């Protein structure tokens, strides 16, 4: 058997089991989960769009949104997607230094984004916009809060993988452990790419 054929075969094996499609079970499952999550965020985004002009009491988007801050957060999140790809590349090559460096940066980006959101939300509170002040506030906090929760979960997930990597538990044949976390991370990123213009930019333009 040639090396290429061996590689091909190993791609079909998972835990000693044959898989029908040339994709690992866990990778297929995370894609399936992501497909399902699309409907989750679609429902939340729709709710926000329906209610974004409902602010009879308290401040509206123009009074509270700080676009420069959020733009910085967006940039950090986008870069983290690139970083995690580099980390995965390091894991696949068995390059420990590359893996640890880029994965640490990814986790840092995740922390920065969550911190940015906490700072942003605190600022909104000071401007008189609580969770129940008006429907714009409720739907904004619900949508971005659930996105932020996803980022936090992803950061925690990547942090445990960073610990594993530190202990040398992510050799090239286990790079998939990082790959499925990275897929989830990219998805969370893509959702933000929709949220940023729809929630921040389009609300200000009106």
């Amino acid at each position, binding site marked *: 058997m040639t090396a290429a054929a061996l590689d091909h075969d190993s791609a079909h094996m998972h835990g000693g089991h044959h898989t029908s499609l040339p994709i690992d079970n866990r990778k297929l499952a995370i894609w399936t989960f992501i497909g399902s999550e699309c409907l989750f965020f679609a429902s939340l985004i729709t709710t926000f769009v329906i209610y974004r002009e409902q602010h009879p009491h308290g401040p509206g988007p123009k009074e509270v949104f700080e676009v420069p801050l959020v733009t910085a957060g967006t940039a950090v999140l986008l870069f983290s997607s690139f970083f995690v790809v580099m980390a995965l590349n390091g894991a696949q090559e068995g390059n420990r230094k590359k893996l640890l460096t880029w994965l640490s940066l990814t986790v840092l980006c995740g922390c920065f984004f969550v911190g940015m959101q906490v700072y942003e939300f605190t600022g909104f509170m000071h401007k008189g916009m609580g969770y129940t002040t008006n429907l714009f506030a*409720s739907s904004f906090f619900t949508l971005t809060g659930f996105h932020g929760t996803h980022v936090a979960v992803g950061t925690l997930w990547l942090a445990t993988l960073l610990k594993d990597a530190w202990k040398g538990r992510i050799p090239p044949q286990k790079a998939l452990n990082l790959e499925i976390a990275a897929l989830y991370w990219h998805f969370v990123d893509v959702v933000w790419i929709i949220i940023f213009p729809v929630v921040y930019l389009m609300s200000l333009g009106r």
Partner: protein
Amino acid sequence: MATTVLEPAHVSSYSKRNVLVEWLTTVDHKKVGILYGASAFVFFLIGGLEAEVIRLQLMKADNHLVSPEFYNQLFTMHGTTMIFLAIMPISAMFFNFFVPLLIGARDVAFPRLNAMSLWVFILGGLFLNVSLLLGSAPNGGWFGYAPLSSRQYAPGLNMDFWMFGLQILGIASLAAGVNFFTTILNMRAPGMTLMRMPMFVWSVLVTQMLVLLSFPVITVALILLTADRIFGASFFSYALPGGVTGGDPMLWQHLFWVFGHPEVYILILPAFGIISEILPVFSRKPLFGYSAMVFSMAFIAFLGFGVWSHHMFATGMGPLADSFFSLMTMLIAIPTGVKIFNWIGTIWGGSLQLKTPFYFSVGFIAMFIIGGLSGVMHAVAPADLQQTDTYFVVAHFHYVMFGGSIFALTAGAYYWWPKMFGRLLDEGLGKLHFWLMLIGFNLTFFPMHFAGLLGMPRRVYTYPSGLGFDGYNLASTVGAWILGFSFLVFLYNVIKTWRSDVHAPADPWGGATLEWSIPSPPPEWNFEVEPVVDEKDVLWAMKRRAGVHRLPEPKAGNGAGIHMPSPSWWPLITAVGILTFLVGMMFKPMWAFPFGPVSLAGLLLTAISIFKWSYQPVDHATSH
């Protein structure tokens, strides 16, 4: 490899454990399936009992057996129970037990996730039913329409039970959805291409797609409702005591039915799959029009996402929306008709084996046609305005949910019972069950068409005499008790055959699919040797090549050297954590935002157990 004669690890590990621990930690898809079925059957009996009390209350005019308040709880719990705690999990029993067997796999893709789905479901079901004991069961209908579900108009714990109960059950469904979607696409035996899969497996695949795409929407709807009820938001209330908020109750209806209509296909498509397995075997003919069956099912599922507003014609959406949703709804009749004609085509000219599963299957076709026809009547918006909220609608959905789903699930129970438990159910009692169920069912629900067209409203605890409702209601009540009695016959059948010493052979019906090639009940590892599939109806093909009607009885092996997933406590502990997290929100102190101490403890428990779970080895060290 020299040590393959050693006892496999799982046998020795089980013998050390007691039976309770074995079942609480099991990750075997067959045991998980049996637990799904057993718990769902208990919930089914509770839901059935609720229906019997409803029927006693409506037996005569101006009756006061139960209070209006308790009546509201009864019909809400009956609907919620039958949909989420009976039909869905009984279907899940068949998914769990038979999907791996039918595709030639040793387990599902994620056995521990599967066990977690089971425990989340059982805990969620118990949680919902605890509300009955506390006297504050959900009382706003299974659809929980705002503002009947808002804190302002439903101040008690009742709708909190409903809201969190459904949220918990949704987690179980979503996890199972990911699991079975992956299992079917990725765990098929060599040669089992998609278009060689048994039709039941196709129905599960399509059903899981519906679950994956519709449950996130109800999740969001319930999150928004939680925001309203627990955190004081106003997503579904136009005004709160503090003033106008601009919230829209219609948003709830849209979100609910975007989930709710696919949900009815989640309830009926597995039934289609079961019938498509049974009819060929008892007609001794392959399924007529296999690929048309696959594509019509996929088409039904696709259209199922574009018809939700036919539940909302009475809300006044305007002529354009009404016309669109009318047309889409009528369109669904076409693929459904294709399926019905193909079932009839399967029976046509077959060498019919008139056994109990076949009786129930034919009963299914007849009852489902009646339910389908009244369904198309609802598609006509002007007519629907007359029918909305009357007993005509109740008659319609019971013809599809009971006459459809329950008839098919019962057919599946008789068909697969010998494989699951190694006992054949008694034919005489089975046919008695069938006739009692058919007569009782029609006596209960057919008169409701007339009562409904006369204007009898749903969800009202009593009615005055002299409106022409009396006779129809009495008939329905008598029918409901015959229907209830028919399930006692089933229970008697189970107990009687359980006690007998007659063991079922591997292939009692002359089956076409892989589950009949292994012993009844199957060993933990299912297949001694991974099967290879080279055409549809693979077992018939094997028999044809061997020139026999029955293959020789398979020998029980010892499964040496086969990797099997290890039992684990973490799925159960994770389920307890999830339950604690969500239930804790019901008892959140005012000062805590967003979570109180109970929820935080639940969250912590969930996080820890998921962490422990991911570092636990997946399967046994075996003998090589």
